[in-house]
């Protein structure tokens, strides 16, 4: 604010009529530009290396210039990574992990978003006894690091016979996400104009009908935000998948890690890079598909009452 004011003041002191049209690049915006460029470089330089390496032949990689473009482009590493590379004892590529991750992702999404949106709706718009206390507990839960409760969760999971299955991973994901998602939904629904809710309550007393017919159609924005949040967390997770998944039910990230550490002879950097990129692609696709809405979603949620 103050920098803007100073800029305006200096501009006014200069040539009056032209001052309005010319925008000066002030010191603060230069700082911001430099900072942003550094951030971008921090991400994009390694990304560049990963991408070019995945298209190189092992012969070129052996030469050692990591920044060089491939002399001969090859998609061989990608095919190997997808369907042939070995992770531990099994050699089926990362594709198996891909499908496992998908099988983990969908139940986690449905379970976590389903439960937390309804809970958030109930907490925000209905008179619930102890709602304040419940919210406080949720708030605390949202900040408990997973590592602290990992061991008890493992014990709990094996005692109900879930441990090692896809469901174990999906359910743990859902439950861990629920406090935060419930808070997000609750805060979003708190902003639904009270009179709309009152009108719905007078028209129809049904908790579920109001949710499904009135509230859910108004939630598109927050759903997109939460979807992106959940998809990226679940997909990129390593620790939960490693801990709760059994042999053959581990997600793509775990398979990827195993692939990278399993090597017979020379390390095939190009295959490792391709496998890493394959693992990273799905959240990327989600970003591109929903990214446009992501920005709109956040502002629409913030401004609209």
């Amino acid at each position, binding site marked *: 604010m103050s920098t803007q004011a100073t800029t305006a003041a200096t501009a006014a002191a200069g040539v009056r009529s032209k001052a309005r049209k010319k925008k000066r690049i002030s010191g603060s915006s230069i700082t911001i530009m430099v900072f942003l460029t550094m951030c971008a470089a921090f991400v994009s330089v390694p990304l560049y290396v990963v991408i070019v390496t995945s298209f190189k032949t092992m012969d070129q990689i052996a030469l050692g210039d990591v920044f060089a473009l491939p002399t001969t482009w090859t998609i061989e590493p990608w095919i190997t990574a997808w369907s042939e590379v070995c992770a531990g004892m099994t050699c089926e590529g990362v594709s198996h992990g891909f499908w496992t991750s998908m099988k983990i992702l969908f139940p986690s999404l449905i379970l976590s978003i389903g439960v937390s949106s309804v809970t958030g709706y109930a907490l925000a718009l209905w008179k619930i006894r102890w709602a304040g206390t419940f919210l406080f507990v949720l708030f605390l839960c949202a900040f408990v690091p997973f590592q602290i409760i990992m061991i008890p969760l493992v014990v709990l999971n094996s005692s109900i016979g879930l441990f090692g299955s896809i469901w174990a991973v999906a359910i743990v994901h859902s439950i861990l996400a629920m406090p935060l998602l419930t808070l997000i939904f609750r805060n979003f629904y708190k902003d639904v*104009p009270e009179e709309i809710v*009152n*009108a*719905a309550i*007078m028209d*129809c*007393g049904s908790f579920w009908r109001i949710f499904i017919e*009135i509230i859910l159609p108004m939630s598109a924005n927050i759903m997109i935000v939460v979807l992106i949040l959940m998809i990226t967390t679940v997909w990129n997770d390593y620790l939960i998948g490693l801990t709760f998944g059994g042999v053959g039910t581990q997600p793509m990230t775990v398979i990827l890690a195993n692939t990278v550490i399993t090597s017979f002879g020379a390390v095939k950097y190009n295959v490792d890079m391709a496998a890493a990129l394959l693992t990273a692609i799905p959240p990327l696709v989600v970003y591109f598909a929903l990214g446009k809405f992501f920005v709109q979603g956040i502002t629409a949620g913030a401004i609209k009452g």
Partner: protein
Amino acid sequence: MPQVEFSNIVKRFGRVTVLEDLSLTVQDGEFLVLLGPSGCGKTTLLNMLAGLQDVTEGTITIGGRDVTDLDPKDRGLAMVFQSYALYPTKTVRGNLKFGLSAQKLDRAEIERRVTWAAGLLQIDQLLDRKPAQLSGGQRQRVAIGRALVKNVDVFLFDEPLSNLDAKLRTEMRLEIKRLHQELEKTIVFVTHDQVEAMTMAHRIAVMNGGVIQQIDTPDEIYERPANLFVARFIGSPAMNTLAARIETSGQAIAAIHGPSGVRMDLSDYAFRTPPKHGDTVVVGLRPEHFIVGETAEPTGAVFTLPVRYTEKTGSDVTMFLDNGEKDLISVRFDHKHHHVPITGEAPPVWFPKDRFDVFDAASERRI
């Protein structure tokens, strides 16, 4: 028949008491307006009737049935909200239908009612639009339509016109009045606009600070305000109120205004409890009752005070007279009948003998 009755209602929010022991009866088929300044508890009262807020103490009955603890949808009411509160993702038709399909009516009946309400409110052309595609007046109509289709006996309106511009407000006012005459339903209408209240109501309940000050017909409230609050709240410009001392001599009774020394003859005033010599009272004089210039009517008081300034609104002029106190005396008259005095001039203005309102200075009640 749906007569609405509030008995000894108390409403508290935590430690704040909003309504204290309020009782009110709305007759069957009546158009009752709740009128009062912002924050006096009108919406709270309406929400409690609708079941949207809990009653702390007391009971509410509708048609003899105790509804105090009933769910909103089971009370047989329909409400029109101040902000329209339309369902943004539903079409106009969807908005009208939502409450009906929840009642599990059959399709033909739902269709019939929607068509009927849409025709009545002239929104037939808009049925497939979303609320965002409607103008303010159209939204208001849809909001009313959503209440109408439910075919209930009691309608609640919470300041439904306050978001509209002046012209639309006048139109909608007439429309609601016409609907009431056509449908003959009980209506409780909340507003803080006295013109709305005066033009639409059978009876007006004037509220202040959670207390009903007076409940009467518009005429009665205007002519015989029960206390100083009502007297000052109703009427525009507001009523002049002069603190005065009673003087009696034989049959004659008059009030003397200290600062200006004006003598107001109250011999024709119908006292409920005649005051004694020396009592302090507050005399109310409506600006529009003053007569400027010569008159043949029996006058109760004559003021010859300097004009501070004048305001012209169309055919009316309001002039403000300096009576030696902080509050000026406002006098309204038609400038066709008298020239507009300039500042500093002191034209004689008369007040009719039978138009005074007199209040006790301490209790502020009408005497």
